[in-house]
Every structure is written in structure tokens, then in C-alpha cells.
């Protein structure tokens, strides 16, 4: 679903605790004495510098240039950004991305939470269920996008056949601005609900059952237990999944690209920001403008990540988190 599916599936629950339990190396010594340790950690930092950070900085530089990838670069100042602001296609792609993101993230996380609570209260076949719900996540987005294309095909797709069988009219799913977004959203929900449920389930298992027993004695019902114990205690994990889903969702590319091809479908309604970025850069060889789009995508991702953070933190209702 994302540009980099290697994005971490796991992150610290609170601020990462960097200090190990007890470092066996107690004597303070100079830098040189630690050369094996620096050598051991250096591959990651070298690779990140060369293939991650440097390209990112270069992207920033490139956003202020005009470049077709072959000829000389020309300084363009703010031209790329000025054009971007007046570029209807860019705004369309932003709108498409946000719609698809909301349509897919909200159901995914809500369903995952319900699923996790169900999985947590079941005793038998636990391992089987966890495995079954996780399998969608390990399948490639390319294969599954092709599959969903067939499933939602207008004339021969199974979904329309089912609609027809119960007497409902067929829907031209992939020729319709909303249909396209719904198909992508359904695909995402299918692929990511189990993954998030497994994460929530792990969080649920850390909540002590004493809390629930206590509340039950006080006369709380299941709904109250969920809203007053489960939800508040899961908040850090929910925040984590919201942030990851946002970073991933705002970079949606593979699904519309495979489902719709380079045209991005009817009225370009499957054109996401990253799709537009990819098309400008690699189909039209407009690297400068492509880089400008990438920078704005980066900004949007950062903005939404911070927004998520602030919203979920504020939702804690002033209760100080230790």
C-alpha cells in the first residue's frame, strides 16, 4: 500500500528507552576503544545517508530546478511551487488521496479494534484465527489489486453478479469516480484490518484482568468496560497505528496504478498524490516538478502526522500520561 512497505510494523509504546538494562561495559573509555561497536552500527547509517537522507535533501534542491533528467538543470526558483498551486490536477490528486485515506483508514482501524476485542475473548482456535486474519497482509498489493479489478469488473465481476442475483442494478465500479475510490478502500480494509487487529490484540493482552474484574464488581457493563478501560489503555497503540496508517495511506500508489493504469481511471479519480508524482517524474520526465510534488506530499504527511498526534494526545482529556 505504501511506497515503502518496510515501514516499521512496530514502534516504541512511549518514548524509546535507550538505556539498556545494565550495560556490562562500565568503565568510561574513549571513542577509539569502542571501534567494534561503531563498526557494527555503521552499515545502517552509511546506507541511510547515501540512499535515504542525501536523496531527500537532493529532492529538496531539485524542487527549485527545471530538469528533464538528461540536459542541464536550470534554476527555477519558486516556479514549480507556483505552478503547483494553480495546478488543478495536483489539487484533484490531493482530494483523491484524502478521500481514499479516510474511506480506508477509518473502517480499517474500527474493524481491527472490534476484531481484536473478539479475538481476545475467544479461547479456542486462537492461533488459527490470528493466522487467517493476517494472511491478507502478506500477499502482494499488485496481485491483490489485479484480483480486485476482476472482482469489481462491470460485466463479469463477481460483485455485480451478486448484485444482479438479488435484483439490484449493476454498478460500473471502475468507471465511476466514487466507485474507484470505494474499490481501493475495500481493498485496503481487506489487506490491513488483520494486521492492525494483531497489534491491538497484543496491547489488549497487557491490560490486567483485575481492572475488568474490579469494574464489573462496581457494576460496569461491557460497553462501559470498553470505553472506560480498554480504549484509554490502548491509546498509545491506537496512536501508533493511526500514524502508520496515515503515513502509508497518504502515499497510496500501487492500488490505483495496477487497477487503472497510467490514466488513473475515469476523470483521473484514482490519481493519488504519489501517482501524480510518479507520472510527472517518470512518464513525463519532469523531474523538477516531480520533486516539488514530492516535497508537498512530504509536508502533507508531516502535517497529518502532527495533527494525529495532537488530536489523540488531547483526547486523553488532560489526564497526564506517565
Amino acid at each position: 500500500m505504501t511506497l515503502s512497505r518496510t515501514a516499521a510494523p512496530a514502534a516504541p509504546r512511549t518514548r524509546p528507552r535507550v538505556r539498556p538494562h545494565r550495560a556490562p561495559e562500565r568503565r568510561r573509555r574513549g571513542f577509539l576503544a569502542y571501534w567494534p561497536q561503531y563498526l557494527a552500527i555503521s552499515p545502517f547509517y552509511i546506507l541511510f545517508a547515501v540512499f535515504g537522507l542525501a536523496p531527500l535533501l537532493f529532492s529538496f534542491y531539485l524542487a527549485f530546478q527545471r530538469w528533464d533528467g538528461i540536459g542541464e538543470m536550470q534554476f527555477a526558483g519558486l516556479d514549480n511551487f507556483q505552478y503547483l498551486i494553480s495546478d488543478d490536477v495536483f489539487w484533484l490528486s490531493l482530494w483523491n488521496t484524502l478521500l481514499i485515506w479516510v474511506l480506508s483508514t477509518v473502517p480499517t482501524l474500527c474493524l481491527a479494534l472490534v476484531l481484536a476485542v473478539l479475538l481476545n475473548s475467544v479461547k479456542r482456535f486462537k492461533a488459527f484465527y490470528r493466522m487467517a486474519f493476517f494472511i491478507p497482509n502478506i500477499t502482494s498489493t499488485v496481485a491483490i489489486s489485479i484480483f480486485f479489478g476482476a472482482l469489481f469488473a462491470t460485466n463479469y465481476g463477481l460483485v455485480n453478479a451478486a448484485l444482479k442475483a438479488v435484483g439490484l442494478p449493476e454498478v460500473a465500479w471502475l468507471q465511476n469516480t466514487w466507485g474507484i475510490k470505494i474499490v481501493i478502500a475495500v481493498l485496503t480494509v481487506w489487506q490491513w484490518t488483520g494486521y492492525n487487529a494483531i497489534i491491538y490484540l497484543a496491547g489488549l493482552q497487557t491490560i490486567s484482568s483485575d481492572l475488568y474484574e474490579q469494574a464489573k464488581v462496581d457494576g460496569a457493563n461491557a460497553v462501559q468496560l470498553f470505553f472506560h478501560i480498554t480504549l484509554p489503555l490502548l491509546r498509545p497503540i491506537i496512536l501508533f497505528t493511526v500514524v502508520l496508517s496515515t503515513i502509508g495511506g497518504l502515499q497510496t500508489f500501487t492500488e490505483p496504478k495496477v487497477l487503472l493504469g497510467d490514466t488513473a481511471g475515469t476523470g483521473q479519480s484514482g490519481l493519488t498524490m504519489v501517482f501524480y508524482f510518479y507520472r510527472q517524474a517518470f512518464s513525463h520526465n519532469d523531474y523538477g516538478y516531480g520533486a516539488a510534488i514530492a516535497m508537498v506530499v512530504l509536508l502533507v504527511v508531516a502535517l497529518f502526522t502532527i495533527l494525529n498526534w495532537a488530536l489523540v494526545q488531547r483526547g486523553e482529556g488532560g489526564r497526564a500520561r506517565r
Partner: protein
Amino acid sequence: MSPKKARGLLLHGVLIAGTILALFPFYWMVVMATNSTADIYRFPPKLTFGSQLITNLRNVLDSIDFFGSMLNTLLVAGTTTLLVLFFDSLAAFAFAKYDFPGRRALFAVLIGTFFLPVGLAVIPQFVIMVELGWVGSLRALIIPAAANAFGIFFLRQYIQNAIPDSVLDAARLDGAGFFRQFVSVVLPIIRPGLAFLGIYTFIAAWNDFIWPLVVLVNPDQVTLQVALQQLNGVHGTDYSRIMAGALLSVLPLIVMFLIFARNFVSDLAKGAVRE
């Protein structure tokens, strides 16, 4: 029936319905891959397996170099996984058990990279590959992915929990240095953690799409995902052929996952909540 029993039945009913929804696409994929396209296009649709699997698979092999791209993918995913396991575990050991100057800051930087969408820097990444002469070469996929923050983070926690300091102290008394301890003490103990990270890395590399799409310019060097989308582009309506290809591409991962699944799922979950 007691209310408790009824609730249990309802619970399993809902979960089984969910399981069917989660697994149905695979069933339907097999249905399409084993029927002729004409059968798929019938109304009402045929809901059972057909006998055309061999024909459809032969069609796939005729239209794309399936085994060539599979070999490329295996090579990329396999090599990447081995490199990641080696580099990540070394770094994780250093972070978990040594207190070298700058460790806190360096680790904070590492965590920070989780949140950087570096995939968006794909234009300069491509330019760098051009400069290095790696465009169209599998190196362009393997080398940049040879070490990653998630693996270091995960294994660091694993090492902290799994390896008592006393064991390392004992090794040190015997004169074992950093690398000696790594090979003879750390590696054998963290094998389960390495297994999880290995499968995880392998799956991610196998499914990677945008970067291979950009950087593998020669048609004979594509990976499976790129080949698959080409098949879809050319034979967009020949569903039985396309589904046979899609099935071939997801089957190896599913088989691998089923073999290791039990530990895989719980390790992933643990990584998310452990501090």
C-alpha cells in the same frame, strides 16, 4: 443452552464469518485460475474449480518470463534478507549491550527514520543509481535495503530480553571480544528473533513494487511484481491467465507463512507493545 454457551457460539460465528471474508479472495483466485475465461464470463458465474489450470499456467509462461522474474525476485529477497540479518543483528548487539559515547543520540536518529517517507526521494535515488551504473541491475534493489531501522530496533529489544549480561561477562572473562561474543554467544541465542525478521524482510522484498518498477529498465530483469503488472496491462481481460499468474506469485509466500506463522504473528505483536 446457557447464555454463556450461546455467547461463545455467536463469537465463533462472527469470527468464522470474518475468516471467510479474509480468505475468500484466495478461493476465488483459484476458481478463476482453474477455469477458462469463457467460464468466468458466464452468468451466473461458475463458483467451483475447473480443469483449465495447466492451460492457464502455460499461457502465463508464454506471455511473460515468469521463471526468470521469479529467479530475480528470489535472488533479491534472499540476498537482502541475509544482509539485513547480519548487519541488523550486529548493530542491535552494540546498541543493546554496550554503552559507547553518542549511543543515545544515534539510536534516536534511527527511531526518527521510521517516520521519514524516504520513498518519496525516488528521483534522486534513481539519479544515484545512474551515477553508480546500477540501473537495470539487481544491486540497485539489494544494497540500499541491506540494513534497516526496524530490524535493529526489533533485535535490540530481543537481545536485551534474551541475553543476560552475566553470560556476556563470562565470555569476556574468557577473552572474547565484541565480534567473538557476537558469533558464539549472541547469534545462537537470538535465532528465533532472526527467524521472524528474516521472514518479515523476505516478504517485504518479495512484494516491493515502485522501486523495481523505476529502476529495472530492462524487460528481462524485472521482478515478479513488475512482470505481473505487465501481464495485467497486456491481457487486461484474460482473467484466467492473469489470475493464474497472480496465484503463482502469492502461493510461495503463503506456503512459507503457513510454515512459520505461529511465531511470526506473535513476534510481530510483541514488537509493537514491548518497551
